[in-house]
């Protein structure tokens, strides 16, 4: 397949995934809202208990709060990853639809595989540019080049591992899913690279520009403009809510290319 065809196939990957996302938006949004609401409620209950107990020991308080916070974030992410199961239902099961309760089915079946995947993903894709941001705070001497390299590593890590998830839904085996991921990468490197590049351009670049502008342009002690900040936050949340299920549909569609190889 020549480059022009690959680009048009990649554009088609995004367009079709968008149509399928819109057709099944309720199941995806319900999963995300449920995950966020549950995480929020657990945190709220926990901090209410801490407040009521009136613990004086600061160290104990920090350890307890960090443990609960990290655990909730991990469970939240593992549950969200079950959206790849919903994408499998839509594209590969033959049923052509997804239901909210399907997320629980995949979560129950594969939660520990999703957990291992998330750990592996964070090792390969350490979001290099985010630690740089937090370590240096408002230090504007930070290297743009370093930030850019971090972004590239982040992107390559993403395309290297994202297509493992549809394999987990298909086989209930992480080992087989990893094997199939690399088989897919070796057979369709151009298609995978271009599709995820377009995806990154749409969903990541605007965010990074915003963060970079905010970061490099921000002066210490400057008041935050809420009229700007709140709508931007709401847009960012909406983009995140669309981005994850869309990535699940795209990667499942790419994963299905393997059938054409076999």
């Amino acid at each position, binding site marked *: 397949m020549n480059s022009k065809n690959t680009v048009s196939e990649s554009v088609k990957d995004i367009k*079709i995934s968008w149509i399928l996302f819109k057709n099944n938006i309720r199941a995806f949004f319900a999963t995300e809202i449920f995950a966020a609401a549950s995480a929020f409620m657990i945190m709220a209950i926990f901090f209410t208990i801490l407040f009521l107990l009136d613990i004086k020991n600061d160290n104990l308080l920090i350890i307890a709060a960090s443990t609960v916070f990290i655990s909730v974030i991990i469970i939240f992410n593992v549950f969200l990853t079950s959206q790849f199961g919903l994408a499998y239902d839509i594209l590969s099961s033959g049923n052509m639809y997804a239901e909210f309760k399907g997320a629980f089915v995949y979560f129950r079946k594969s939660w520990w595989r999703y957990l291992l995947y998330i750990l592996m993903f964070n090792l390969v894709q350490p979001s290099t540019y985010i630690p740089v941001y937090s370590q240096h705070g408002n230090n504007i001497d930070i290297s743009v080049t370093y930030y850019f390299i971090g972004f590239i590593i982040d992107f390559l890590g993403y395309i290297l591992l994202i297509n493992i998830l549809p394999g987990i839904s298909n086989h209930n085996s992480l080992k087989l899913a990893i094997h199939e991921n690399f088989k897919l990468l070796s057979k369709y490197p151009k298609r995978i690279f271009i599709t995820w590049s377009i995806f990154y351009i749409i969903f990541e670049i605007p965010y990074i520009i915003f963060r970079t502008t905010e970061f490099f342009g921000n002066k210490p002690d400057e008041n935050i403009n809420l009229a700007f900040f709140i709508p931007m936050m709401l847009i960012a949340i909406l983009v995140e809510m669309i981005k994850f299920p869309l990535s699940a549909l795209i990667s499942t*569609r790419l994963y299905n290319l393997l059938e054409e190889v076999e």
Partner: protein
Amino acid sequence: MSVEEIKDLKELTDFRAIPLLFHDKKEKLLKLLIDNKMNIIGIAKELKMNPGTVRRHLDDLISMDLVELIETVKNEYGQKEKYYRASAKRFKVLIDFVWP
């Protein structure tokens, strides 16, 4: 597959098929599948039902051999579509029932 290709009459020996044939929604679904092969989304649109509900009704009908999966195809979106069809145009339930 055309209507002519499915059996004219199928004899069933499992009495649990009877309530399915008298169930309002399942009866409508079965009648639809006697005339056409359809996928879940098509059935859901036609009967104005939720696809999940259609799936559950179909599972019940399949479990009693009233409906069968006849083919799986890929559509223009690259989605797999499962097509279902009634296993016959008419059904006869044979029960040899003695109680107690």
